[in-house]
Structures are given as structure tokens and as C-alpha cells.
């Protein structure tokens, strides 16, 4: 008897405890959850909804399902923009990684007060807002205000115009590398600091040189951090927007409104009042980013451990 009366009570109390625990859990998640839903999920859902309609100046708005996406993937403005950011990534990311890895390795080996100062200075560009950084470079590239003209003049040469159609690629490459290399350096430096020093000791006892330690121990052990950086850089570069948008008033010819997919989406939405197509471009870009990151992670699945 006692068993039969006990059981439902204990089940009930266990259930209510579970419910209470669940509620407490939800209460803890709620602040984040509300912000997440209101500021991320809802706008994305709305943008997705918008992207399924087509708006034209004559004829108004109509439902086209994936019509905007089909248009985007056959729109030379969008495709050229995607091609540009992919080319840009192919050059930029290895360059950025090489620079930040080299600096991180040097700073890992050299332990002086100067090294600490350098670390701060190299990190500093990341602390400067993109807008200000881009504006500053705009002036540095300038013929009248910048130092380039004078430097080249002293060699009797004409300074290259990094804001011209032919050189804007390199002008932007330089700005982005300058801005981000310090940040990636810190990530790599932290990873290097996390390596167990006994490994170096063992290697040295086995007769490994400094170079061999770097190549055989340090770099393989920071590989997961390198993959992380790569994914960050890839996503960031495919969404390239701030720097070209800020330099545009100085280089309108070299940076047209459809320079990168994000700028094209901005132009469609806010200057041509075509929010629907702008939303579709954004989603199409999202798809491109997803595919690129997936291909990349697939290619590096053996070494990359941070996502598996």
C-alpha cells in the first residue's frame, strides 16, 4: 500500500521539480533569448519574407518566390562583386595570416620590454574604428596631404595613386591588413603561449634548432587557431563593406556602387528603394559565404579541430 501511495507523489514532485528547473533555466536564458529573437531572428525572418517579393517602379510589388535569387545569380553586378571579394580573400587572407603569424612567432621568442610595447602597437590598429582607419588611409594616399608623393618625389618618381581604378585593390588590401593583422596576431600569440614549454625543452634536448621548433612544434600546434582566423577572415572579407564605402567619396570611379555584394545590397535598398532585391542579395551573399566556409572547413577537416 505504502508503495502504491508513494509512487505518484514522488513522480509528481519530480515532475514539478523538473518544470521548476526548466523554468529557472528559461528565465536565465530569457534576457539573451528576447534580444536574440527581437534583434536577430525577427529581422532575418522579415528580410527573408521581403526577398520573396519583387518591386518595380511600374507595376508595384508582387510575389515571385525565388525570382529575386534567380535574378541575383544572373546579375553581373552581384556576380562581379562576389568574384571581387573572392579574389580579394584569396590574396588578403594568406597575406594577413603570414604577417600575423610571423609577428606572433617573433614576439613569442623575444621577451623584452620592447616586445611588449611592440605587441601593443601592432594591436593598436584594431582598436581604431574602421571608419577612422579608412579615412586616415584616404588622407595618407592623397597626393596633396599624404607622405607618398614626397617620398616618391625624392626618388624622382611619381607616387602611385592607390585610389585609382587599377590600384584600389592594393590600396584596400593594405588598409585591411593593417587593421586586422594585429588582432589575428593576438589570437596566435595566445595560442603560442598556451603551448607546454616542456615540449620545447624536449625538442632542444633532441637537438632541434629554433627553426625546427617553429616549423615542427609551434606551427602545427597553433593550426587550430590558424583555421579559426581563416574562417573569421573569410566571413569578414566576403562581407566587405566599411572600407570601400568610406573611401567611395574619394574614389567614386574606382569604387562603384556595386563594388562588393554588400555595397550593392545597400545601394538597392537605400538609394534605389528596392528593399526586396536588397534583401535577396544579402541572403544570396549569405549563401555564398556559407558555401565558401563549408568548402574551406571540408578541405581542412583533418587539421581544423575547433568545429569538429
Amino acid at each position, binding site marked *: 500500500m505504502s508503495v502504491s501511495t508513494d509512487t505518484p507523489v514522488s513522480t509528481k514532485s519530480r515532475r514539478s521539480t523538473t518544470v521548476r528547473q526548466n523554468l529557472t533555466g528559461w528565465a536565465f536564458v530569457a534576457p539573451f533569448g528576447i534580444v536574440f529573437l527581437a534583434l536577430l531572428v525577427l529581422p532575418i525572418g522579415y528580410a527573408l519574407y521581403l526577398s520573396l517579393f519583387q518591386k518595380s517602379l511600374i507595376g508595384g510589388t508582387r510575389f515571385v518566390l525565388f525570382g529575386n535569387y534567380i535574378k541575383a545569380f544572373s546579375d553581373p553586378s552581384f556576380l562581379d562583386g562576389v568574384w571581387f571579394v573572392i579574389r580579394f580573400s584569396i590574396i588578403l587572407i594568406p597575406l594577413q595570416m603570414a604577417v600575423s603569424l610571423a609577428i606572433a612567432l617573433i614576439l613569442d621568442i623575444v621577451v623584452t620590454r620592447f616586445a611588449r610595447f611592440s605587441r601593443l602597437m601592432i594591436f593598436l590598429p584594431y582598436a581604431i574604428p574602421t571608419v577612422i582607419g579608412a579615412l586616415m588611409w584616404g588622407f595618407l594616399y592623397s597626393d596633396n596631404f599624404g607622405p607618398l608623393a614626397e617620398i616618391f618625389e625624392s626618388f624622382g618618381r611619381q607616387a602611385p595613386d592607390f585610389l585609382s581604378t587599377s590600384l584600389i585593390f592594393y590600396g584596400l588590401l593594405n588598409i585591411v591588413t593593417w587593421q586586422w593583422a594585429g588582432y589575428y596576431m593576438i589570437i596566435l600569440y595566445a595560442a603560442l603561449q598556451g603551448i607546454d614549454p616542456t615540449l620545447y625543452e624536449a625538442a632542444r634536448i633532441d637537438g632541434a634548432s629554433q627553426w625546427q621548433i617553429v616549423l615542427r612544434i609551434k606551427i602545427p600546434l597553433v593550426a587550430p587557431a590558424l583555421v579559426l582566423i581563416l574562417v573569421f577572415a573569410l566571413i569578414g572579407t566576403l562581407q566587405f563593406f566599411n572600407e570601400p564605402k568610406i573611401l567611395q*567619396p574619394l574614389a567614386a570611379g574606382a569604387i562603384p556602387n556595386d563594388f562588393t555584394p554588400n555595397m550593392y545590397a545597400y545601394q538597392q535598398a537605400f538609394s534605389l528603394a528596392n528593399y526586396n532585391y536588397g534583401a535577396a542579395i544579402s541572403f544570396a551573399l549569405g549563401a555564398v559565404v556559407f558555401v565558401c566556409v563549408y568548402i574551406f572547413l571540408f578541405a581542412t577537416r583533418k587539421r581544423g579541430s575547433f568545429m569538429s
Partner: protein
Amino acid sequence: MLAVAGALAACTAGGSDGDGNGGGGGDASNCTNEIKNPDAPVVTLWAWYPNSETVVDNFNEANDDVQVCWTNAGAGGDAYDKFQTAISAGSGAPDVMMVEADRIATFQAQDALVDLTDLGYDDVKANFSEGAWKDVSVGDGVYGAPIDGGPMGMIYRTDVFEQYGLTPPTTWEELEATAQKLKDAGGPVFASFASNQPATATAYFYGNGAEPFTYDPANEGEIGIKLNSPEVKEVLDYWDGLIDKGLVGTENQFTPEYIAGVINGDYATYLSAAWAPGYLQGAGVGEGADAGVWAAAPMPQWDTANPIAINWGGSAFSVSSQAQDPELAAKVAFGVYADQASLDEGWQQQIIFPLNVDVLDSPEFQDYEVPFFDGQQANKEVYVPAANAYKGMTYTPLGQYYYSALTKQMAAIIDGSATGSEAADALQKDVVAYAEEQGFTVTE
């Protein structure tokens, strides 16, 4: 910016930094100016004239039955983006909005503006020239009250011209010869062809008799686009030639870089509008070593027997379709910046080149010895004739896209990847494709 709103149709003492409110534009409780007569109905206004506050005060003092609540929602593009967003959202637009002529057709196509034909147009019709009205009209409808214009002229440096023994060219052919002479003598470039100024290039097209667009909303969805006409090609090929020969600069205009070049004497001329002296002075031109070296001459012509006056820029007051009382709003649109005191301040400080014919014809304006031009009577000699002869342009809802496409082609001409004619063909193709995609029936 933090407006301490009073209980009534409130006014704020601060906020004159011109940044205005970030919230609803149609909200009359957040004015930058002080409302003189709190009992009268209020009309909201967005404008970015440098002397907007004085102009609005003048209006409010003179009117008992309506008051203007003014906000600076940003200059040009910023204000249009906000207005555009408000129109798309269905609320938040001001009752009256300062709009440049080349934007009117775009907003009109979205039913964002009110036709002023029956709202007081007849009373002020005689105050403005035919060209001024054409620029603010779409088809038969009038969608703005003209305020200022930009008749074009050639601003040149007398010091450079004297040093190299040049005279202002009267034709484009002469301009090329003069520029060549200047270059051969080791002088600076003659002018500049900036890819970020598609509006100037469009004015040049008109200067050669081109009619790039025909558009009348009455003909539902029809548009004529002739951007690869012989006239347009001739203009672009001409500039292409000047660039190839190194006779003109190709830097973007309205940048610190360009202004520094203007002050340094890197350009012998600035082919620009009547409002340019005001803009240049604001940017510091004509104050230092280059003080008193500027003069104005009429624009070069393709055919001196049939001269064509051209215009760059200019603005109007339009009534938004979200206006609660369109009649009252129209009264404001026609009334603000129309009184003598405001107009006088505007032209004397060279903030605007007025389109009001009473001002244009007045001896004070005609004979004014412009300080920037070292006392030259530039209004009488250059700008008033240009303004009077100006026949207007046809703007279309494709305007924004067209400018962006033209900028691309101008950049292609500059970097040598296309000749002027090729650029015109590519431009035509690009704009026609956009027009068709937007549902227009295109006549080429």
C-alpha cells in the same frame, strides 16, 4: 540634440547644430527653430540651406495662420535616404521637403509628392522662368516650388591666364587649344573631369543639344532613353581626348584633395555652377594666396551661332504626400525662401543663386560686384544670361540608377578601358536594362 520639448507645439533652444531629430520627421514637437506663433497650425519642413533657420524665422514672423517647424535631416543623399525610408514605411516624412530637381521624378513615381498645380502654382507662375518650372515638373504636374538654380559658367584663375597669356575660350574647340597651349608652356591642367560628378556630365550632354530622356507619367510606363546619341558620344569622346592628351585632371570633386588642388592652382579653371563660389569660399578657397585671382566667364559652346545654356544643381520645396494638410503645406512650400529678406541674404552671401525673376532682374543683383570674383559683376556678365536662356532638363525616376551607371562609365573613360563612344553605348545598354526591369516600355 536632446530636445527638451515644451508642453505645446514645442520649441527647442538647442539643437541648432543642424543634426535635428532622428525620429519621426512628421513630428511637430521637435523643431530646431522657435515657433513664433504657437496657436497656428504647424507644417514640418526638412531643409539644409546654410541659412535655413533665418529663412524659417522670416516666414514664421510674417505669417499668423501657419508656422513652420524646421529640421535639418542631413544634406542631399542623407536626407533623401531618410525621406525614402519614410515614404516606404508610410509615415515619418515631413510635410515639406527640400529636394533637388534631379530627384523629383523619382519621388513622384512613388506617389511621394503632391502636385502643386491647383495649390497656388498660378499665383507664383510668373515669378520663375520656363526652365525653372520645367526642372520641377514631371509631365504636366508641378512637384516643387523652385528656389535656387545652378546656371553654369567657367570660373578661371586670372593669375594663371595672365602668366601664360590665355584668354577664356568661347567654344569647346578653343578650350582644347587653350589647354594644349597651357600644357605645352608647362602650366597646370585646364579643368577636371570627375567621375563622381555625373550631373555635370549630364549638363554637358544638354549643352551639345542632347535629349537623353523623354518621360511623361501620363503615358503609363513609357520612357525614351537616348544615351548613345551622336551628341552624347561627341561630348564623351571630346573629354576622352582631353584626358588622353593630359589636358584635364580626373580627380574626384568635392574632396579635400580637389579643393587643395584648386587652392594650389593645379587647375586653371573650374567649370561649375553659380553656387560654386559659395561652396568654394566655405571650403577655404579665395582666402589665402589665391584671394582675388578668380573670375567668371560664360561656358564654352559647341556652336556659338546656337548657344545652349546649361545648369547644374538647384533645389525646390516639395510637398510630401504624407502632409496632413496639403494646401497649408503648399502655402509653406511657395512661401518659405520667397520673401525679400531671405532671398537677399541668400544671394548676397552666395548661399543660393535665386531663380525668382524679380531678384534676377533687380539692379542690385545684376550690378552686384562679387567679392569672390574681385568685384567682377559676374551675375550680369555670366550667370543671369545663362539662367534666363536655360530651357530645363527632363528628369526621370531612373535618375539615381542613371547617375551611378554614368559614374561607372566615366571611370572607364578615365582609366582608358573604354572610349567615349563605347562608354555611351555601354551606358545606354545598362540604363535600358534597368528601365525594362523596372517595368518601363523603353523607346531607344
